[in-house]
Structure formats: C-alpha cells, structure tokens
C-alpha cells in the first residue's frame, strides 16, 4: 500500500524544522536551571539527524521543543512552517497527529489496546481514512515491521523489541513526514537495536525526515548528521562519513549474530 505523502521526496531540501535562539529554563524548588541556552538550528526535509550528548545536557528537552510537548522559555520553534507557540494544547495534539510520529524510549503503547488497535488509534484521531482503510493500513504497517502474527496481542504479551517496532508502526500510522524518536533503542538489546535502526534507515530512504535522540555514539555515527548538545548548547553539528556507517552496521550485525 502506498503511503499518502509521496510528495515528500519532492520536498527534500526544504526546511522542516527551524529553531531560533531557543532558551529553556526549569524551576525546581528555589533554583532555576537553564537546560537550553540559545539553540538555533535547521533540519531539512529528508534528513536523518541524531542528537547526542551526555545525560542532563538537554537532548530530550530539545526534542520536546520540536514535538511541541514542551515550550521554550524564549525563542521560536517552527515545524513545517507552523510556529508551535501559536497553537493551544488541543490544537497541538491534533497537529501532531497529522504532521509527526513520535517514538518513545519506553514504547508507551496503551496497555488496554492490542497492537493492531494501538496502530489504528492515531488514524482514528485524524479521521482521514475510513475505518476499513485504517485497519488495512495498520495491518500493512505491522507486516512491514514484522508483527503481523502478533497483531491481536496486548503489549504486555510481547517483548520490548516487538513493542518498539509496534510503536514505530504507530508513529507511521498517518504517514507523517517527520518521525521523532527519543532514545528508541535505550531499552533494547543490541540485535533489536540494530533492527530498529535499520527500520529507521529504510524510512529515511523513503523520504521521511527522522530526528533521533540517542546516547549511543556508535549508533549516532551511522546517521548522516549528528548534533551534539553540551551544557544546553550545540557543541557539534556534522555529517558522519557514509562508509563509516556501512562498516559499523556490519560490526553491529556480526556482534548480534555471535551473541
């Protein structure tokens, strides 16, 4: 089944995320902590970006700015041209459903729904497809991630890796142009991490824009662009060598087979 965003490849190179002088501060008790200290960056459509850095340096906070889950204390965040601060919480929820898919570290599948229902759920919110079409697309996505035989199982009945793959399928439900993943392999073993990463690469090859927060430097190096956050500022923003990516992928697979 074709996705219904096939014009993405034609938009490659256009800015999909624009961040300007974003500052984020938190108040804990009597202290004010600055987590982001004036970050500016652009991400183009079709890019695969890894955001790296040590714990507590602001990676997830930056990601929350991009998804609209959190708001900057100062500065602007635009995604697909939409200034996120203009939207109310409810409007943001609806906008997210149509424009991006989010993959969480702890999968965050709804425990009350089976895998098929979890994937159908975002489509129910957006209501672009008929109920029959939603089911068909959900089955297609679950087959794509290798979970068609587990589609009636509850999240508690499948492994962590399977849950994460289902979460990826859910993130793709409305065929969003942008996929955002916060430590998607943080709770997975090496082999499964490799599978998930390969999936992301495949999606990127299809024209999706991917932004992935990870603390795994090796994984990050496989990603074409890496942004390192340190003390709330961009320390490094560079493209990794494509050959390094291929070599490291092989090493990961070898390690996984041997384990």
């Amino acid at each position, binding site marked *: 089944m074709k996705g219904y965003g096939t014009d993405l490849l034609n938009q490659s190179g256009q800015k999909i995320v624009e961040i300007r002088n974003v500052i984020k501060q938190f108040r804990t008790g009597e202290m004010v902590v600055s987590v982001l200290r004036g970050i500016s960056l652009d991400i183009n459509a079709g890019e695969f970006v890894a955001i790296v850095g040590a714990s507590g340096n602001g990676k997830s906070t930056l990601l929350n700015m991009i*998804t609209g889950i959190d708001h900057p204390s100062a500065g602007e965040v635009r995604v697909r041209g939409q200034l996120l601060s203009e939207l109310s919480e409810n409007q943001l*929820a609806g906008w997210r459903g*149509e424009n991006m898919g989010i993959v*969480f570290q702890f999968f965050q599948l709804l425990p009350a729904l089976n895998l098929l229902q979890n994937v159908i759920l975002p489509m129910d*919110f957006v209501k672009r497809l008929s109920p029959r079409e939603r089911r068909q697309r959900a089955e297609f996505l679950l087959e794509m991630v290798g979970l068609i035989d587990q589609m009636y199982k509850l999240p508690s009945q499948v492994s962590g890796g399977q849950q994460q793959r289902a979460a990826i399928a859910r*993130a793709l439900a409305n065929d969003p142009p942008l996929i955002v993943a916060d430590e998607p392999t943080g709770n997975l073993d090496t082999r499964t991490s490799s599978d998930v990463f390969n999936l992301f690469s495949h999606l990127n090859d299809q024209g999706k824009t991917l932004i992935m927060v990870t603390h795994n430097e090796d994984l990050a190096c496989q990603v074409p662009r890496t942004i390192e956050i340190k003390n709330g500022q961009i320390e490094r923003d560079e493209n990794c060598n494509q050959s390094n990516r291929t070599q490291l992928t092989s090493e990961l697979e070898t390690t996984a087979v041997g384990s």
Partner: protein
Amino acid sequence: MSVIWNKVWYDLRHNLGRTLLVVFSIAAGVFTVGGIFGMVNQLLAGMDIAHQQVAPSHINIILRNYVDQAVVDGLKSVPGVVDIDPVNQISVRYKSGSQDTWKLGTLVERPDYENQTYDVVVLKEGSWPENGRLAIERLSSQHFGFEPGDQVTFQVNGAERIFQIDGKIRHPFVQPPPFGGQAHFFTDATGLEEFGIPQGYFGQLLVRVDDYSLENAQAISGEIRSRLADQSIGVVVSLYQDPEKHWGRMFVEGITLVLRVIALVSLFLSVVLVLNTLTAVITQQTDQIGVIKAIGGQSGTIAALYLVLVLIYGLLALFIALPASAVFSFYMSQWFLNLFNIDYPNFVISTGAVVLTVLSALVVPLLAVLWPVLKGASISVREAIATYGLGGDFGSSRFDRWIERFGARFLPTVYAAALGNMFRRKGRLVLTLLVLTTAGVTFLIVMSLISSIERTLDNEMARTRYDVRIGFTGNQSIPAVLALVDGITGVETAEMWYSRNATILRSGEQLRDSAGLGAQLIGIPAESQAYQPVITAGRWLQPGDGQEIVISENTAEKNNIAIGDTITLDLGELGAAAWQIVGTYRAIYGSGFLVEPIYAPLQTIAEVTGQIDQGTQLIINGKNIGTLSQETELSDRVKSRLEAADIGLDFYTTSAKLDQRAYADNQFSTIVSMLMNLAIMMGVVGGIGLMGALGISVVERTREIGVLRAIGSRTSQISALFIMEGVLQGMFSFLLALPLAYLLAQPMARLLGQRMIEIDLDFAYNFPALGIWLALALVISVLASSLPAMQATKISVQDSLSYA
C-alpha cells in the same frame, strides 16, 4: 467507533477489584437513598390512605355521663354536624388463664358492627362479638398472645368473669403495644351490660363535621358541649382528628427526617469514594493520557473516556441498587405500617424514589468526578509523561519538610515513612479523611443522640420522686387514706393528689364559641417534693400560691398562652374559675392518646371547688426501692390494704415509676436501634473508602515497592508501611471528628427532639462513645489496610522494575 473505547472495557475488567469496589460504593449510597426515600414515601402515603379509609371521625367526645340514642339524635341537629356515631370504650382489668396478675386493658363496644359509620373497625378473623362474647384486637393478639377460642378472665364488679374470644378485629386507633399500648377487646351491648353499662347507652361520641378545620371542629364541639351541659351531661375531653393525616404521622416524620439526612450523608460518602478512586485512576494513567495527546488525541476524547467509565460504574450500581432498594423500601414500609396496625400487602414501587435512585447512580457520580476528569484531561503532554525516578515531589513544601522532621525526630523509621507517605498525595488524603471523619462524626452524633434521649428520660425520672401512684375511682378522704397506709411495710412517705378533667377556656372565649382545651387538672400539696418537672418558663408551684397553675410548654405554644395570662378552668358541675399561669413545664410522655396535666395547688382547688380534704390519687415513696419488682410488691401491699377497706381503685391511673420508664424506653427503642445500625453502616463505608485509597496507593507505588525489596526490605516491613499508613489516617480522622461531633451533636439533638416529640432533649455528649469510635477506627483502619498491604507484599522486584 474509535478503538480508544476499548480502553474503557479494559479498565473495567482488568482491575476487577477496583471496579467492584467503585460499583459497590456507589450502590451502597444509591441503595440507601432509594430505600429510605422510597420507604418514607410509601410509609406516609400508606398511613394517610389507611387513615382515610376508616372514615375517621373529626371529633371524639368522651362524656362524663352515659347518654341514650335520643340525646345523640338531638345533637345531630347542631349546625355543621354531618353525623354522630355513638360508641363505648372503658378500662378493664383482665388476666389470661396462665397469669396471676391483673393487667389493664380496654373494652370497646359498637352498637352495630355490621353498620359502622366512623372509625370503622374491620373483622380479620372469626366472627363479630355477639351474645356477650368477645373479639380481640389484632395487634393485641400478636403482642399479648390471645387467639380466637381463648378465654380471658375479667374483673367485673369485684368478681371474676370468664369470656370467650370469638374473633380478631383491626382497630385503626390503638396505640401499638410495642410502644406501650394496652390490650384491646371488643364486645357487644350484651357483653358491656355485664360491666354495668346498660344497653343503648353510650359514653363516647364520634362526630363528623361538614367542613373540617380545627377551628370549625372546635366551634362545633363547643356547641355540642353546651347542649350537653344544658342536659347536665358533662364532657371529659374532646379530641380532634385530621381526616387526611394519620395520627402517628408526626412521630414518623421525625424519624424519617433523620433517616433522610443519613441517606444523603451515605450518598455523599459513596460519591467521595468514587471521586477518590477516579482521581487515583487518572493519576495512575497520566502517562497514557500524555501518550494519547502525543499521537493526536484531544482533551475532549480523554474526558469522554473517563466520564463514560463512571457512567458504566453508575449503571452497574443502579442495576444492583434499584431492585434492592425497591424491595427494602417496600418491606420496611410494610413492617412500619404493620406496627401501626395497617395492612400493606401489595408490592409497590415509589416513582419518586426511582427517579432519585437513577439520579443518584448516574448523575451525581458524574457531577462529582467532572472536575478531576476535566483537570486530568487538560494535563499537558509534558506534565503527563515527563516524570523522573520514583515520583518524589514530597518535601518540596515547608509543610512536607516539617512532617519529615517530626517523623525523623519522634517516630521509628517505619512509622516516619508511613507518615510521610500519607502526605504525598494531599488531595487524596483530604478525600479519604473526609470520608473517615464524616463516618466518625456521624457515629459520635448518633451516640450522643442516644445518650441525650437517655439523659432526658433519666432527668424526667429523677424529677418523679415517688415510686407508686394509685388512682381511685372516686374522691376519697385524704386523712382516712393516709391513715390506712401509715405503717404499711416499705412505705416511707405518702400524700394525696386530686385530679379532675377540666376544660381550659382562653380569656375572651365563651363556651359556645370553642370547645376549649381538654386537660387534666392535678392538685398537688404545696409542700410536696414528689414531682418537680423541668420548668421551661416561669416557675413551679410554691407554698403560698393561690389560683396559680403550671401548664405544659406544648399546650402553651400551640395555643399562644403566655406566662401571666389568665385562663378559665371549667370543671363541669364543680364550676369554673379563673387561674393565672405562672409557669410551663416540659412533658415527655403522651403521644396524642393522653391529655397533658396542668398543675395547681391542692389547697386552692379544694377551696375553689369545695372538695375539702378530697383526693383521687395516692402517691407513695418507698424505702430502698430499686427494682420494678420491689415497686410492684409495695404497690400490691398498699392496694390490698385499700381494697380491704372497700376503696375503689382506678387501675388506669395506677402505675409504678419504673414501669413508666420501661414504657418510655419502648417508645424510643425502635429509633435507637435504627440510628445505631446507620452509625455502624457509616463506619463500614469509611473503611471501604480507606481500603480503596490505600489500594490505589499500592498500585501507584509499585516501582517504589520493588526498589524497597531490592535494597533489603522484608515482607513484614512493607506490610507494616501500608498498615501504619492506614492506622495513621484512621487516627487523624478520629482527631478531626472529635471537635466536629461536639459542635454538631447538640444542634442535631435539638432538631431530633423537636421533630419527634416536640421538646428540647437534655443534651449529653457521649464521651464513652469516643473510646468506642477510637477502637472502631483502629479496627477499621487495620482491616481496611490489610488487603492493600498484602497486595504490596506480593509485588516482586522484577515485576516492579518492568512496570512503567
């Protein structure tokens, strides 16, 4: 339909314990509302309908002399009189074959049982009394054990006569025996003649007027009295009866008011439980709410999910509570109505109660949870899913730090941890404490109501400083009687009182305009200490008083008679005189079947009426009398001496003090047991609330429990944490309930006293109940926290660390 609605079904069945807890919590409150309001509706309507069906007379005139049919027919021409049904009712002494002691009863006669006009009695079993045989009243049969076919011995003109019971009759106006009513027998004219009343003569007139109002009935009664007076026929008293409302309504309305209040409190408590539980569920599912919003779901959808969940809880509760409350209200109504001798065989459902039940089950819980649902649904994604560690925000406020320091300084570690845990969710703590405290306050108030009733009766008894009162059938010489009883073993002091039925006329009202007020005038010796009622205004009688009287507070209020007013007492052939009111007293006993006494100096009555040294009641104070049997023995010794001297005794006005106390206790026992049961139910509801809150707490703290296990905490220590938290909440609620109950108990006691018996109860705060509630609160807390504590101990490290 969106797949998200599967979450509702999952939430219902996945945590079945919680679902059942919530459903039964709502059902308990709804059941109480539906059951009690349904019972009240049916009870009051049933009483009034049964009352109207017997064609109740508007005026019951008790005559001093017997009259024939000609006199009765003459009275029918009084303007406003529709008809008059003449009847007889006399006091009798009886005993059954197995008894040795005589008892006081009532014998009723109707000239024609087949063609009654007013206050219709109904044959229930056997046959109408004829040819001198008897029938027994239905309630009397149940209570005293008489059946058709039994024989009863009566004292007739000093001799014993045996009569056979042929039938069972229902009389609409008998005082229920459980409330102190006497046995009622029925006879015909032939049978009554055996007791000295000629056939065709009547001592009571049942009158109906064409346009009933109390004023109109009083006016017509006055005219009747006047015409009777012209024929030298005296009237003892005129009793008035509302044709639409049952005579027992006032008493029932008082009880049902309290029951309705408690039903609403119960509903409130159950709704608070639902609110507590749903708040905890939303808190527990905050991350799911965040995820739903992160993938496109909006606040409206989330709010609808939880509201539908509550609606389903309500529907399930309604399914349980509606039929249960309908059955309860019918059978309770039937039981109460049977107490008042009213049949209620056909199952009836109160429409009003059904509506209330449905609203209580469906609408009230929804309204209660609306705010937390909307608040939960509006939570931002960041707040919902950006949590760290084990959720440790306790300690961020000054109050939290004070709690922590207090616990660290004064308590062992486990208790200190439990104390801190208790304050982590302050909102839930407030709700749980609200439930427990309300339960405690209600319990303490009910116990104080009971102790106030007890104190009121005790005080009344304390003011009755004699042991035995013996009435005479006619006037007796005071010196002669006192000489007779002097020297009888056990008699410490004796005095004589004079009593006479009287009519009170208010200044300005002529006899023809109003029948006045029926009363019993009692003359007491000036120096008497035998009786000193509670004076509510003015003063009691004093030595040296002349034409001064003390009347009941009830009579004064109802008829706008004030201290200092002058009224006329009409004593029939003994004449009328003006008296000044110097005080009002509180009358406890008397339920509409008795007229309330008015007290005057004995000497003054003698001077006014010419009845010098005459008395009608002997008042005896015994030596070392402490039990009813001792009082009865003393009474029997005195009565034997008097009877030996051919002095006629009126057993209707003879009584022992402790008998009177037992009679009063009987009257209140039904109310007391009902209140006790409701107080206990409040305690149970409070315990359920605590159990629910702690259960949710266990689920929320699953990760924390796993961490505790991982760092060495044993099962007993984890269990102790939760049990101690429950006990601390129980103790807090106890401390909160104490002052609240103290503040509220007195106004509640006043309200109950006024509504039920139209007096202010002597308030007594039930201090022993504090100890009982403390023990109950401890037991409830331990029991309620045991199950959650057990659940907590079953959580393994692996389970908890994989919990997210």
